[in-house]
């Protein structure tokens, strides 16, 4: 009877995990999703206490109380900017726990159970890699650990030796109490060698990958115990983690294999600098842009000639209205020479009934830009080119501009990467906070309106 109750609890916990993660992929439900996943976890933990023949309860409770205090304290006190480090640290702890379980369990495993033995070995290896890798990743983000070049072939050699050793331990047909620690040691070393050479700017992607690995160890540990909540929860994290890793790499305009195997060292600008030294601009899609804007306090739209060409003045007014309905303050930043004639933008926007008090002149707007969450540049180029301020060799040096790079985020809607009227490249497009949204202004704006509406 008690076993069935445990199974049902685990089943409910798994459902809560899935629903929780699902809800966490949308901003409105994300917090509730987190709570739902947490309630699933609490249920799973309670159910595990019902396991028949459980001893050492006092020790278990002491360990849990200590862990809870440590976890809550560090999560509450950490600086907002240091959160990725903390996540990496927690992830390493999960990996370590899985490896420790493997170590303890090895003593009880019959030597002729090759299947379970193999599962246990993979728990040990992956858990240890995840542990040491996460700690290095944390050190890198903190700036404590410097980038060191390590020959990746050497790293793979260490991993290969570890796997071979695991194979030997399995096939030896006798307990190997010493070799098992050597195996853990080798795996820990591989974790270090795996993360060491990867540039600090790429750490979020690496942490996501290590997180996925920890999920896999949770799953292999689940296989060891025929425990479905660990199996399911672990694989869920493992596969979601892999997908998330790919998505993150894509958002940074990098490929995962590029990050892991080819790029050594990093530049301060990180993602903004391409591998071959050529500048690469980052793209964003309509969905992500709409979320960025809908959760902003103030959005500033900077229209240019492109808006007029695309006849997108009505579409932009629609976007403004729908964002205002969501409680976002929307203003227009009007550069005196935006478009092909003075006042071009004012006329254009007046045509679609944009309230006049929303059109802010350049000087007033530049005061507001540092407190702006998102600037959306539509078909403007030279009037937002920071080279006018800081590059004396530029032909437009000295021209007053809208200093959009002082806002928190910049989205540039443009048809292509071509240069503006003055025929010069725009450094703004390559800044870390800038995202490019390619396409015809009218079409893109209509998509944005649709996305915001759906939220």
């Amino acid at each position, binding site marked *: 009877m008690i076993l069935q109750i445990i199974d049902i609890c685990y089943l409910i916990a798994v459902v809560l*995990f*899935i629903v929780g993660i699902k809800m966490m*992929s949308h*901003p*409105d439900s994300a*917090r509730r999703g*987190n*709570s739902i*996943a*947490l309630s699933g*976890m609490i249920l*799973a*933990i309670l159910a*595990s206490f019902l*396991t028949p*023949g459980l*001893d*050492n309860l006092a*020790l*278990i409770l002491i*360990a*849990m109380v200590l*862990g809870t205090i440590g*976890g809550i304290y*560090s*999560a509450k006190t950490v600086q*907002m900017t240091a*959160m990725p480090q*903390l*996540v990496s640290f*927690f992830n390493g*702890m*999960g990996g*370590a*726990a*899985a490896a420790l*379980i493997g170590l303890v369990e090895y003593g009880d495993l019959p030597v002729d159970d*090759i299947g379970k033995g*193999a599962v246990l070995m993979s728990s040990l290896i992956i858990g240890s890699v995840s542990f040491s890798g996460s700690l290095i990743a944390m050190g890198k983000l903190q700036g404590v650990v410097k980038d060191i070049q390590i020959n990746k072939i050497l790293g793979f050699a260490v991993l290969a030796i570890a796997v071979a050793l695991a194979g030997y331990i399995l096939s030896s047909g006798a307990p190997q109490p010493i070799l098992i620690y050597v195996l853990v040691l080798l795996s820990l070393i591989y974790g270090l060698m795996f993360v060491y050479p990867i540039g600090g700017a790429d750490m*979020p992607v690496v942490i996501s990958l290590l997180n996925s690995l*920890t*999920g896999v160890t949770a*799953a292999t540990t689940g*296989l060891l115990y025929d425990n*479905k909540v*660990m199996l399911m929860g672990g*694989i*869920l994290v493992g*596969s979601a*983690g892999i*997908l*998330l890793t790919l*998505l993150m790499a894509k*958002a940074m305009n990098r490929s995962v294999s590029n990050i892991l195997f080819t790029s050594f060292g990093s530049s301060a600008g990180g993602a903004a600098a391409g591998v071959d030294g050529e500048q690469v601009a980052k793209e*964003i899609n309509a*969905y*992500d842009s709409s979320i*960025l804007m809908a*959760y902003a306090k103030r959005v500033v739209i900077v229209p240019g000639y492109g808006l007029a060409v695309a006849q997108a003045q009505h579409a932009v007014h629609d976007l403004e209205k729908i964002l*205002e309905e969501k409680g976002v303050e929307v203003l227009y930043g009007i550069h005196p020479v935006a478009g092909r004639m003075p006042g071009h933008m004012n006329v254009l926007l007046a045509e679609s009934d944009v309230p006049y008090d929303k059109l802010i002149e350049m000087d007033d707007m530049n005061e507001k830009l540092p407190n702006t969450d998102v600037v959306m540049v539509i078909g403007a180029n030279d009037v937002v080119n920071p080279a006018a301020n800081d590059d004396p060799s530029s032909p437009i040096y000295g021209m007053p501009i809208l200093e959009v790079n002082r806002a928190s985020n910049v989205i540039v809607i443009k048809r292509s990467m071509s240069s503006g009227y003055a025929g010069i490249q725009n450094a703004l497009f390559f800044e870390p906070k800038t995202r490019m949204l390619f396409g015809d202004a009218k079409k893109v704006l209509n998509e944005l309106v649709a996305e915001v509406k759906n939220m």
Partner: protein
Amino acid sequence: MEAIIEYISINQQELYIFILAIFVGVEVISKVPTVLHTPLMSGSNALSGVVIVGSIIVLGKTDPSNYLALSLGFLAVLLATLNVVGGFAVTNRMLEMFKKKPGKK
């Protein structure tokens, strides 16, 4: 080789779960906006702390006179708890920025 095939046939059910879970994992986060990448990573990190279930069982089944296994198990429970509790708490803090803006039209 025989051992592997035997293992597969004994654990068929687990393998089904394994494979289906991979698809579920990919499916549930297939459309996640960039701003949620970090919170979602943190949240799934907290979930990988489900290994705590295993650590509780392992410590609970350890012979109280085996001090080495006892201390390793103790450490496992402690670290897994850190992963779970800290993971959920830090995720919650990250997600506070998505709270509804109060009283603003």
